[in-house]
């Protein structure tokens, strides 16, 4: 793919991925076929900041933050146990941003294969 388009994608979506994944993503995009561009561009990547806000403002105890990033199984686990007896809720305030970025990477990898 053209490096101009790749750089545009990287600029728009840098905050959605872990920083150590960025160079690998760039390499993948450069090697990729032009026909995959619409798929990559229309990816519904989740914003880590939004999930953190959901997690802190009450959604954490009900597992809504996990549902938001597409981690349905863990979300149900949190919902059924009052947010993991309150402990998991607090742990997730610190883990949810990383989990969001990991989920985004999973989504990106699924879309290009």
């Amino acid at each position, binding site marked *: 793919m053209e490096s101009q388009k790749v750089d545009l994608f990287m600029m728009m979506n840098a905050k959605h991925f872990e920083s150590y994944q960025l160079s690998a993503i760039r390499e993948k995009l450069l090697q990729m076929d032009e026909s995959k561009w619409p798929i990559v561009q229309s990816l519904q990547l989740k914003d880590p900041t939004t999930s953190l806000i959901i997690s802190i403002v*009450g959604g*954490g*105890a*009900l597992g809504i933050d996990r549902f938001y990033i*597409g*981690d*349905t*199984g863990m979300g*149900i*686990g949190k*919902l*059924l*146990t*009052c*947010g*993991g*007896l*309150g402990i998991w*809720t607090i742990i997730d305030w610190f883990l949810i941003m990383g989990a969001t970025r990991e989920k985004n990477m999973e989504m990106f990898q699924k879309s290009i294969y």
Partner: protein
Amino acid sequence: MSKNKLYSLLLIACSAGFIYLLYQSYFPESNKYSVCIIKNISGIPCPSCGATRALQLLFKGDFIGSILMNPFGIIISAILILLPFWIVIDLILKKETFYTFYNKMECLLKQKKVAIPLIILVILNWIWNINKVI
């Protein structure tokens, strides 16, 4: 999520659940302090408040009392009892039947026609919980 991570997480969660249940059964006087963040902050019970008492009632054989306390107790007890066996059998036979099942269920639950009725059920249970004053 990888298979090993999921299995170890669920085994830890199940053992933590059993430890908490045993603790609550042997020291019932600690019941007045709730572990639920929502209940502690706002005073309103969350959808799954009362699940511990529902589980205790269920293990004493009071099925109807458990449903009246919180219907989530039935689901949680089924998960708590089934999951460890399923995971251990999977680990011994070196298969991944539970992992594939988990992924399939996640895909199913993400569909709107399945998700929306379930969300409505949870909200109804929440309203019932608030009215019961658990």
